[in-house]
C-alpha cells in the first residue's frame, strides 16, 4: 500500500500514528506530527479501528457503547494463557466492527476504501517473562486495501 494517495475529492482525517512508511516494518508512535499530517483511505480505517480497539468500552462521556473490552480484559487478568488471546481479540474486534458499521450506516457517504471489511488477528505472541503481548492484525477495507499493524500490549502476568 502506498503511504500517500491522491487526496482529490477525498475527505481527510488527522493522522495520529506517525512513522508510517510505504513498505517494511517501522516503529509507529502516536502523535500529530510536526506539520500536522492528514490521511485518508485505509489509513483512516486503520487508525479508527485501533482507536476504538484500545478504548475501554464505557469510558467515553455520553457514548457508553464506543470502545472495546480488550484492554479491560488484559488489565483484569482474563488473558492468562495464549489460548485466551484469540478469544478476547475476537470479542473485542466484533464490538469494534459493529460500532464502525453503525457509524458508516449513519454517515452514509463513506467510500468503500474507508469502510471496514475485516480485522484479522494474523499472529500473536504472549511473552510471559517480559509481561508483554504482541498482536499482529490485518485491517482490510471493503475496497480490498489492507494494513498490517503490530500492537504491543503490556500485560500484568508472568
Amino acid at each position, binding site marked *: 500500500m502506498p503511504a500517500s494517495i491522491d487526496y482529490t475529492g477525498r475527505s481527510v482525517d*488527522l493522522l495520529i500514528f506517525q512513522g508510517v512508511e510505504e513498505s517494511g516494518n517501522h516503529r509507529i508512535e502516536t502523535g500529530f506530527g510536526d506539520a500536522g499530517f492528514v490521511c485518508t483511505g485505509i489509513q483512516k480505517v486503520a487508525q479508527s479501528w485501533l482507536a476504538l480497539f484500545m478504548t475501554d468500552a464505557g469510558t467515553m462521556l455520553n457514548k457508553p457503547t464506543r470502545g472495546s473490552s480488550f484492554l479491560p480484559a488484559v488489565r483484569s487478568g482474563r488473558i492468562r494463557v495464549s489460548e485466551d488471546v484469540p478469544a478476547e481479540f475476537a470479542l473485542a474486534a466484533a464490538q469494534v466492527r459493529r460500532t464502525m458499521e453503525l457509524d458508516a450506516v449513519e454517515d452514509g457517504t463513506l467510500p468503500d476504501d474507508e469502510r471496514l471489511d475485516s480485522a484479522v488477528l494474523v499472529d500473536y505472541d504472549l511473552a510471559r517473562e517480559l509481561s508483554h503481548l504482541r498482536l499482529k492484525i490485518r485491517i482490510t477495507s471493503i475496497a480490498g486495501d489492507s494494513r498490517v499493524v503490530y500492537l504491543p500490549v503490556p500485560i500484568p502476568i508472568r
Partner: protein
Amino acid sequence: MVTTGDVSFSDIDPELVAQAEEYLANFLSEQFPSRDFSEGRVIRELVVNMAALLTGLNRTDIQQLLDSFSPLIIAQDPTAADDDIVDAVYANYGVERYDGNKATGNIAVILNDLLTTSVPDTTVFTANGLRYVVTQPYIGVTTADAVVTSSERLIEQRPDGTYVFTVPVVAEGVGEAYRAVRGTRFSSAPVIAGVIDLEAAADFEGGTDAETNADLVERTQQGIAPRVFSGRAQVAALFQEQYPSLINLSQVGFGDPEMLRDRDNIFEMSTGSRADLYVQTADTPEEAVVVKDCTYLGNNVWQGTINRDDAPGFYLINAVVPHSLIVFAGGLQINSEARGLDLTMETDWVHNVDGLVQGAYSRYQTAVVQFTDPETAAGTVVGAVVQYDFYITRLPDVKTLHDLTIARTRRPQNGDYLVRAAVPAFAHVALEIKYRPNTMAPDTDAVKQAIASRINALGFTIGRLPMALVIDAAQGALEGGGTYTFTPINMYAEIYPPDTVPSGKITLIDVNELVIPDLPARGVSQRTTVFYLPVSEINVIVNPMSLLAI
C-alpha cells in the same frame, strides 16, 4: 450569578451534547468539505466531541441563566434558580428578600462560689449542636461597685446558695433554630472556671430564617397585589410587606362560621364588614419576662395585672417569680388568672369586640393574676407593692400588625380587621429510634430540629398533626443502614380555646393524628388554630436494636 463554574458535566443532558455534536459536525462539514468529521474519526473525537461538550455546557449555563430571569420558571422550580438573580428579578416587583436575623439572649452562668469570673470574647456556647458567641469579653464581679461598664456583670446569690450572673450572647447563624428557650443547657469552650451550669436565662429573642427562593416566589405573588385592607390576597400582601418574617396568616370573614364579631346584633345575623386575622409570627411562641408591680392582698397572696401593652396577644403565664430571680424551677403558685379586655381607644376608633371569645389573643387582652408567695416578709401590710417577674408565652409583634388595623389612613372605612395570635395547640411528641448495634447512635438534636421544622411550618394548612409527617421528618434526619423510627409514637396537644383561656383546655391524644376539632363558636377550627411544637417538647430516645450476628 450563574457561571460555568456552577455547572458540572453531570448536569449536562447527554441528548443536548448529542444534538450539539451533530450540529457541529454538519456545520463544519459544510464549511470544510475536505475534512472528515464523521463518527470515529480523530477530528471528530478531538475537536467536534470536545466542542460539543463545551457547547452543551454553555447551553446548560445559558438555559439556567434564562430560567433564573423568568418568574414563571423560577416559580416552577425555585431551588434551581440562582439567589442573586432571583433577587434581581423580584426587585422589579418591589420585593426584597428577607435575610433573617440572629437570635440573641442571656445565658445564666451559675457558680458554686462568689468569685470573680471571666468570660473571654473567644468563648463559644453550644446547645443542641448550635453555637452562640459573645460580642465582647465579660467578667462576673462580686460587688455592685465594680460594675462600671457593660462588660462587668454582677454576680448574685440564688436561693439554693449558688451564684449566678448573665452573659449576653448572639447566635452564630440566622434562623429560628437558634431561639433557645428558657432553661436550655449550654456548654462552653473554653470551659469557664468555677462554673457548675450554664442555662438560658430566658427565651432568646429574634432568630428568624432567611427567605428561600420559594418563600420569595410566594410573597411576590402577594406582592403584586395592592397592599391594602381588601381581599385576602391584598391583606396578606400588606402584612408580608410590613412584617416579612410573618409565617402564616388565616383570615376569617363574612360567611365563615368562626366569624362571631359580625353577628353582634339582636338577630345574630352576619352583617359582614368584620374580619379576624389570625397570625403566626414565629415558628413557636417565645417567653417574655415582664416586671410588674404587685399588690399585697394578705395571707401571702399577691395580685398583679398584665396590661394589654405588656405582652400583646399573649398565650399563657408560665411562671411568676420574685424580681431578678434568674434561674428557677416552677415558680410561685398561681391561684387565679382572670382574662379580660382593655378596649381603651388608641386612635379615633376601636375594634368591635365583645367578650373573650372574640378578643382573646388580640392586643386588647389583659389578665389579673393572684398568686401566693410563701416567702412574703412578715409584717408586710395589705396594699404593699413589690415587683415580681412574670414569664409569659406570646408570639412577637402582634401589636405591630394590630397597629396597621387602627391607623386612620390605612384602615378601611367600612371594615373592622382584628389581629389575633393564632389559637395555640401546644404539641408534644415522644418517639424512639432504633439503630444497629456497633454503629454511631443517631443525632437526636438533628431529629428534633427536623420534626419541629416540619410541624411548625404546617400553620393553618391541614388542621391536623399526622404521625406520618413526624416519622417522615425524623427519617429524613437519620442515616440509612436500617436506622428507623419505632411506631407508634406518642403525641398529644393542648388547645386553649379563646372563650376559656387559660383554663378549660382541650387535650388531643392519638397515635395516628391529632385533629383540631371544629368548634367555631369557641373560636377553634383549622382556620384559627396552629400546632406549636418547640424542640424542647420533643423527646427522642435512641436504642440499639437486638440483632443476631451474621
